[in-house]
C-alpha cells in the first residue's frame, strides 16, 4: 500500500555574499545557517537548534550592508542579494566585548569548548574590567528592586556570583554560571515543556531566572523534566549527581561512556543518551536532533534510572 509522504514546499534558493564570496541559501534560512554551510565559524551562546532564537547574547553579530547597526546572524533570515561581513574590525570588536562582558560577570568556565576557544581567538580578556566582586549571600540577588541599584564600588567589577541553589534531589541551579540566554525559560515554556515553572524576573543587570517569589523548585510548578538542564549552555543547571561529583572532584568526562538507548517507560520511544562513569549512571540526555525528542525528555526518562542500578545485595539505601 502506497502512502503519501508530506513534503515541505520546495524552498527557493537565494543568492548572497558572505565575506566577498557568493553563495546560495534556501529562503527562510538564517545568516547563521548560511555561514555554517559555508564553513564560516560563528560564535553563538543563546542560539540552539531546538529552540526559537531569542538573539539576546549578541555574540553572533555580523555586518550587513545597508544596516546601521550589526545584525544577529542566528535569527536574521537571509535575503536575496544580501552582503554579509563576518570578520571586520567592527564585528570582531563587538564579539570580543560581548565575550568579555559575559566572562567578567558570569562564570563561563563550564561553557562549551567552542566558547573557550572563541574567547582565545577573539583575544577576550575579562580581567580588564577589574577584580571580580565577592559572591553575594543566597537570595540577595532575588530581592533586587527594578530601577534601584546602589552606586558601584570603584574597586571591583560587579558579577552575578552567588551560592548554588540546591533544593531538590534531582538537579541544582548554579546561577553564578547563568548568562541569561533564556534557553531554560523557552524549554520550560512553549518550546518544549509548557510548564512555565521559571521565568526571567527583575530588570537590567539584576535580571535573573526565577520561580515565583524565588520559591524552591519543589514549591513551584516544576515537573522535573530536566529539559532546562538539557539546553543550559554553561552548566548553570546541572544534574545533582554531576554537581556532587564535581564537588568531590570525581567527575571525569574522559572516564565516561555514553550509551544510546530507547526509554523503557512508555510508547513514545524517546532516545536516551546514558552517561556512565564507574559503572554508575551519572546523567541522561537526548540528542538535540532526534526526531522524537528534539533533545527533550520527561522526568522518567531523564531521572528515573535508579532502578537500573538497584543491584541485589548492593543497595543499602533501600527504605526499610
Amino acid at each position, binding site marked *: 500500500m502506497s502512502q503519501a509522504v508530506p513534503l515541505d514546499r520546495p524552498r527557493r534558493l537565494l543568492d548572497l555574499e558572505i565575506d566577498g564570496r557568493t553563495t546560495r541559501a534556501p529562503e527562510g534560512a538564517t545568516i547563521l545557517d548560511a555561514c555554517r554551510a559555508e564553513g564560516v565559524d560563528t560564535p553563538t551562546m543563546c542560539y540552539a537548534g531546538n529552540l526559537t532564537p531569542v538573539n539576546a547574547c*549578541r555574540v553572533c*553579530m555580523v555586518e550587513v550592508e545597508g544596516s546601521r547597526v*550589526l545584525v544577529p546572524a542566528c535569527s536574521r533570515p537571509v535575503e536575496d542579494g544580501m552582503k554579509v561581513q563576518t570578520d571586520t574590525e567592527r564585528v570582531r570588536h563587538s564579539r570580543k566585548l560581548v565575550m568579555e562582558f559575559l566572562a567578567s560577570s558570569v562564570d563561563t568556565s563550564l561553557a562549551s569548548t567552542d566558547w573557550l576557544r572563541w574567547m582565545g581567538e577573539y583575544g577576550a580578556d575579562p580581567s580588564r574590567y577589574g577584580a571580580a566582586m565577592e559572591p553575594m549571600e543566597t537570595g540577595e540577588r532575588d530581592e533586587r528592586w527594578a530601577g534601584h541599584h546602589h552606586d558601584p564600588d570603584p574597586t571591583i567589577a560587579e558579577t552575578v556570583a552567588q551560592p548554588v541553589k540546591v533544593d531538590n534531589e534531582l538537579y541544582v541551579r548554579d546561577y553564578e554560571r547563568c548568562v541569561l540566554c533564556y534557553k531554560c525559560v523557552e524549554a520550560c515554556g512553549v518550546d518544549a515543556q509548557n510548564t512555565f515553572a521559571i521565568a526571567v524576573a527583575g530588570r537590567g543587570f539584576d535580571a535573573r531566572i526565577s520561580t515565583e517569589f524565588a520559591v524552591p523548585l519543589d514549591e513551584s510548578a516544576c515537573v522535573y523534566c530536566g529539559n532546562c538542564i538539557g539546553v543550559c549552555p554553561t552548566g548553570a543547571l546541572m544534574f545533582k549527581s554531576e554537581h556532587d561529583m564535581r564537588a568531590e572532584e570525581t567527575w571525569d568526562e574522559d572516564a565516561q561512556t555514553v550509551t544510546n538507548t530507547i526509554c523503557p517507560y512508555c510508547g513514545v520511544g524517546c532516545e536516551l543518551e546514558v552517561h556512565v562513569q564507574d559503572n554508575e549512571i551519572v546523567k541522561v540526555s537526548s540528542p538535540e536532533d532526534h526526531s522524537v525528542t528534539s533533545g527533550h525528555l520527561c522526568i522518567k526518562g531523564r531521572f528515573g534510572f535508579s532502578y537500573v542500578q538497584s543491584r541485589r545485595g548492593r543497595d543499602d539505601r533501600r527504605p526499610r
Partner: protein
Amino acid sequence: MEAAPTAEERAAVDGLLGPPETGWVGATERSADDLRVVRAGREAREQRHLLLPALHALQAGVGWISRGGLNYVCQRLSVPPAEAYGVATFYAMFSVEERPANVVHVCDDLACRGAGGLALCGELERDAGPEGADAGGWTWVRSPCLGMCEQAPAVFAQRAGRPEVALGGATRETVAEVVAPDSAVICAGGVGAPQTADAGSRDSLRLLRRAGVVDPTSIDDYRAHGGYEALRAAYEMGPGRVIEAITEAKLLGRGGAAFPTGVKWQAVSTQPAGPRYVVCNADESEPGTFKDRVVMEQDPFAVVESLTVAGFACGADRGFVYIRGEYPLATERMEHAIGEARRHGSLGDDVMGSGRTFDIELRRGAGAYICGEETALFNSLEGKRGEPRNKPPFPVTFGVFGRPTAINNVETLINVLEVLRIGADAYAAIGTEGSTGPRLFCLSGAVERPGVYEVEHGATVRDLIALAGGVPRGSTLKAVLLGGAAGGFVGPDMLDARLTFEDARQGGYTLGSGVIMVFDERADLVDLCLRIARFFRDESCGQCVPCRVGTVRQEEALHRLVAGTPIGSAQDELALIDEVARVMRDASICGLGQTAANAVQSAISKLGVFDGGAA
C-alpha cells in the same frame, strides 16, 4: 503551598475585573456548574493583557504584591505565577515585598538634582533614615526623572488605598503633608507651558493653542475651541486622502526616531484585512521630557481626537493610550476625556453619527523607561515583560497582539489635527524644507521660566533659551543637554545650532524628544555623567548582553575615574569607556542600549569633562 489572597486583595482585583464567575478562576464557592464546565484554555489566556492593570490594582489598593495576591491575579487571568512574578519585578512601581503604605519617589535626576532634589534627599535621609526604611507608615526612594523638570524638584507618591500624587517644587514639608494619614494633597498641575500665559505670543501657537485656555475637563469647551473639526474633516476626506495629507505635510515623528508618519499610516492601512490597532505612546520617560504630560494635562481631548483620526486613517477600530505610570494628573484627565468622548458619542459604535466604530483604552505604565520603546510597549500592553522585540518584523506588520499597528507619540498625533485644520500645503510651509511644522521643546535647568515652548522648526538653541527668559541673571551658561539622556551635551559654542532634523543630523547632535536642559557654572558635569550612567544601568531591560553588562561597565569605569583609582591610567579608562560605547551602539537590540553612551561620550569629547583625568 498555594498562598491565599486576603479579602482586601480580592477586593482590589475584583474592583478591576469584576467578581470571579466560577471556582475555576478564584471564586471561593464552587457552584454545581463548576463541576461540569471548565473555563480555561485560550479564552482565559487571552485575558493576559489585563495583567498590568491587575498588578496596579493590587499595588494601589494594598501597597504591595503578595504571594496570595499574585496567585489570585494568576488564577483570574490564567497566567503562570512565575511569569506574573517576572512581570511584577520588571517595574519600579511594583513591590513584591511588604513595604510602608506610602512611598515617596524623590527625583534626583538631571534637572531636579541641582534644583533641590539632592538636598531634599539629604533631609529625608536625616529625618526618615536611608531609602526604603520604614519611617512610620512611609518611606522615600530616589527616582529617575519624573517628567516635571519645569517644577523641579519633583516628587511622586504612591499611597496604598489613596490616590497617587505628583508634585513640583517639593520640600521636606510637602513630603510630610503627602504621607500624613489625613493628607488632603492632590495633584495641582503647575504652569507647564508659560508661553500660553503670555497673551502676546498666544496667536502664533498651534499645538499649544488651547493649553491653559480650554477647560481640560469639558468636551463642550473643547468643541467651542475648534475641537472635533479635524475628525469631521477627516471623515469627509476619507482615509486615503487623510494619509496623503499627512504625507504631503511631511510630518515626522516627534518621539525621537523622526520617522515619516504618513509612510507608517500608509503601511498599516494597506495590510491584509483583520484587526489593526493605533497606539498613542504617552510613556514619556526620557529624562528632561515633559511636553506630552503638559499636552495631556491641558488639552486631553486633542489627544483623543487625533488618535481617533489615526484609527480612521489606518482602518483600526481600537486604540490604546499607554501613559507613563508616574503621571497621575495626566492619567486622570485622559481617563476623563475618554469617558466624556464616549458619553458624547465621539467614541464608541457610532462616532459622531458616522456609523464608524472606534474606542480607546487607557493603559498605565508602571515605572520603566524602556516601555516607551515601541515594541517593549506592545509587550507591556500584552501583559508581558517590557522587553523590546527584535526588528524586523516592524510594528506596521507585527505590532500589539501581533497585529498591524500604527504607534505615534502624543506630539506627533496632535500635529495631525493641525495638518487637517490648515491643510497639508500650509503645514508644509511652516518650518524648514526637511523639518516641517511646529515643535515643542522642554526647557529646564538654568533658565528663568522653565516649561514647554512651541516654535516653528528652524529656531536655534539660543532662541529657545531666550523664550524661556534666558539664563538667570548673574550666571553663565556652561552646557546644554539636547535630546535627553539618550541625546548629548553641547557647549556654549553651539547656541546657534538650528533645531531641525537636518541640521541635527549634520551637526552631530539630536533633537530627541525636544529636551533643552540648560546648565550654568554651578553644574557639576562629572556628577551629571554619573547620574546618566546610573539611569541607563537602572533602565536597561537586561535582555541583551551589550546593554545589560555594558551599562554596568560604563558606570563602573566612570566611578573609577572619579574616585581617582583607574585601572591603568585615566587615558586607559577613557579608551575602555569608548570601547564599551562602541559595542553598545553596534550590537544592542534596541535604542536604549544603542544610545546609552551618547551623553557621556559627548561630555567627554565635546566638553572635555575628564580632560586631565578625573573631573
